């Protein structure tokens, strides 16, 4: 069945800078914003943009992600034609390999894409929090007569050297691309979202695969090669909330951005819903003595203590006299009486014993140091976990490399 446009979602990354949070699961499966997982954002953007065929390329620890995606029904991606398809690396008659790079992952699935004979392919990654209408980007791609369109956003000049930076002409056509340049010529950063004309991409992927010196990467190989050949490449300017949540700090920041009416990340917008596979649990119960302010809470939570400027995922229990502030609690965390949690991320099903003290507020003018607990970590009563310390599931300290 022919599709004008399909999407390929790169979800194989380990997310090593999320450390213990991705010990057992791929980064796109990490819970976000109380009721979501990171991958809900690109999947929901796809269906809201009218893209109903999405290949999800998995490699690292895919079980959690696979079972989360399931049939694709929560995102309406379980249609008769297309829908969501998990694409792991596979063996062929002449052997097989792991996905060597982002371009190689797509190359290995040329067969999947050819089935739909698409005009355009959208390449997405599974580690960004944003709402974007890809159909608008495709319109830009068609109008510019481009073979490749890259979504870009303006970043502060002093941060530009951390991104892939584009230089553009008066028509916003890309003239130069530099990956993390020391002296950036512009402040237009790539958001890692690409639209390609499929036949052109297919040719470049095949050539890239034949090049033994290539790293098989979109940013390092495919895009520079297209630019070198003088292919028309357009920039698509995006204004709105976008955040790469590849680090513990940025994951925490994005969760905090969601709080309050003033944030750019509006998840209440009914015109652009973010769908999620939700857990079945009774409504939130807020006890008679609780004190909750500036916080997001979800189903199945029982709150008897104090919660301030925090994000609580489903089924979190906070006992009387416990106190949580500036923290992100993933599903199923239990905090016993008298415990204090500050500036922390607590993994799924962590159990915090009575009178524990996890993390701490930064001193005036100092940078915050998040305390982070791996999923299933159980802290015995009275334990102190200093700011910036990370514990594995056994409660032993691990270093952030």
């Amino acid at each position, binding site marked *: 069945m022919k599709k004008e446009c399909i999407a390929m979602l790169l979800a194989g990354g380990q997310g090593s800078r999320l450390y213990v949070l991705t010990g057992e699961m791929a980064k796109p499966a990490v819970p976000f914003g109380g009721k979501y997982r990171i991958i809900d954002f690109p999947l929901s953007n796809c269906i809201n943009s009218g893209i109903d065929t999405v290949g999800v390329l998995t490699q690292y620890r895919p079980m959690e992600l696979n079972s989360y995606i399931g049939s694709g029904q929560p995102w309406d991606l379980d249609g008769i034609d297309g829908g969501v398809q998990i694409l792991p690396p596979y063996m062929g008659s002449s052997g097989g390999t792991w996905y060597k790079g982002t371009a190689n992952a797509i190359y290995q699935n040329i067969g999947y894409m050819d089935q739909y004979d698409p005009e355009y392919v959208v390449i997405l990654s599974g580690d960004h929090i944003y709402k974007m209408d890809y159909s608008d980007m495709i319109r830009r791609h068609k109008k510019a007569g481009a073979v490749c369109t890259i979504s870009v956003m303006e970043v502060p000049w002093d941060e530009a050297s951390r991104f892939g930076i584009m230089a553009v002409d008066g028509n916003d056509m890309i003239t130069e691309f530099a990956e993390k340049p020391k002296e950036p010529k512009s402040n237009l950063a790539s958001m890692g979202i690409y639209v390609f004309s499929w036949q052109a991409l297919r040719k470049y992927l095949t050539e890239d695969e034949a090049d033994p010196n290539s790293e098989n990467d979109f940013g390092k190989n495919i895009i520079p090669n297209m630019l070198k050949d003088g292919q028309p490449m357009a920039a698509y300017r995006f204004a709105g909330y976008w955040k790469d949540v590849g680090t513990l700090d940025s994951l925490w920041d994005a969760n905090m951005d969601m709080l309050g009416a003033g944030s750019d990340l509006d998840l209440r917008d009914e015109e652009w819903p973010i769908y999620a596979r939700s857990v079945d649990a*009774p409504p939130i119960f807020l006890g008679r003595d609780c004190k909750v302010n500036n916080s*997001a*809470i979800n189903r199945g939570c029982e709150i008897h203590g104090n919660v301030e400027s925090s994000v609580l995922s489903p089924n979190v229990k906070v006992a009387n006299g416990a106190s949580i502030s500036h923290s992100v609690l993933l599903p199923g965390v239990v905090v016993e009486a008298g415990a204090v949690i500050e500036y922390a991320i607590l993994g799924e099903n962590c159990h915090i014993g009575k009178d524990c003290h996890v993390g701490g507020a930064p001193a005036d003018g100092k940078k915050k140091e998040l305390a982070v607990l791996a999923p299933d970590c159980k802290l015995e009563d009275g334990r102190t976990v200093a700011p910036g310390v990370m514990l594995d599931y056994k409660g032993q300290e691990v270093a952030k490399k």
Partner: protein
Amino acid sequence: MNRLHGIIFSYVMRNDLRELTELRSPASVPFGGRYRTVDFALSNLTNAGVTDVGLVLHGRYQSMLDHVGSGKVWDLSRKRGGLRILPPFNYQKDWGVMPFRGKMEALAGVKTYLDEIRQDYVVMMDGDLIANIPLQDVLNQHIESKADITVVCANDSYKTADGTYYEKDAQGRITEVLFHLNQPRGYRGLEIFILSTDLLRKLVAECEAQDQYSFRRSVLLNKRDELNLQMYVWGGFAAQMRSVQEYYDRSMQLLNPEIRAELFPAERPIRAKGADKSSTYISESGSCLNSLVAEGCWIEGTVVDSILFPGVTVAKGAVVRNSILFKGVNVAENATLAHVIADKDVEVQNGRTLMGHYTYPIVLAKNSVI
């Protein structure tokens, strides 16, 4: 294959739910912050492994159809069996026009469906019962006691309008079936019955031939000596809501943690259609105490002793006490509500004050603007 088949009655029955059932049947009345009453019957069935369920509808059932959809939420969207929606399809009599007078008449209206039931036993239940009952245990007792019909009853002091009450002997056999009593006595019937599929077919045919419509009168009462009627006594929470007062009182009991534990045990989850809403947010000015709150609410005012369904907004300075606010209710700044049940999408504008009482909660009809 599971041996039990489920039939849920969700036609409009006599009740005093006033505005709450103006646009819906009693079985699709919102309850407990995120449920419809029928979610309990459906979840009780699926938690007992039941895979085939018939839902008997009659009148005001659009809200029910919207809610149950394909039955996917309860794992009842299946290739074989699954959820069968049963509006009246035999118009020879007046079934399309007049409400059913009783269960036997309703079943006579879906006789071809009864003939196709694959399971040996049928559990019949009303769609407006709020309880979490292990129906597998009821079936086991039914088989062990060699009963013809097992009737599930509550052993508590609640009285419900138009309820049926039962008395039993020491062996558990039902000796008396009581209704229309001024002073109810005995065990309160929960309108859950298990019987064999063959017996059900026989009884439906018999009643139809004699133009009898009532299960409790023509079968339970008249045949109590002829048939072995056994009682299963359920000790947990079980609410039948036939009036606004009952609805209000029983809803407010959910603020008690012991009642919630009885109704929502982890091993028998109550499943409900999810609303795709974001997290609930409580702002710095907001306060929410002793309340049950669904997702997608936005609380900047004060909420105490209340139940909030998805997407409720309580603005700054507003105070909500002892109230039940359905999906999408908007309480504007400085408004005050006490002992109010606000139906879907009600808007309470700036500074308005509405006060009911424990003994007379005010009901605001769907979409009304105050």
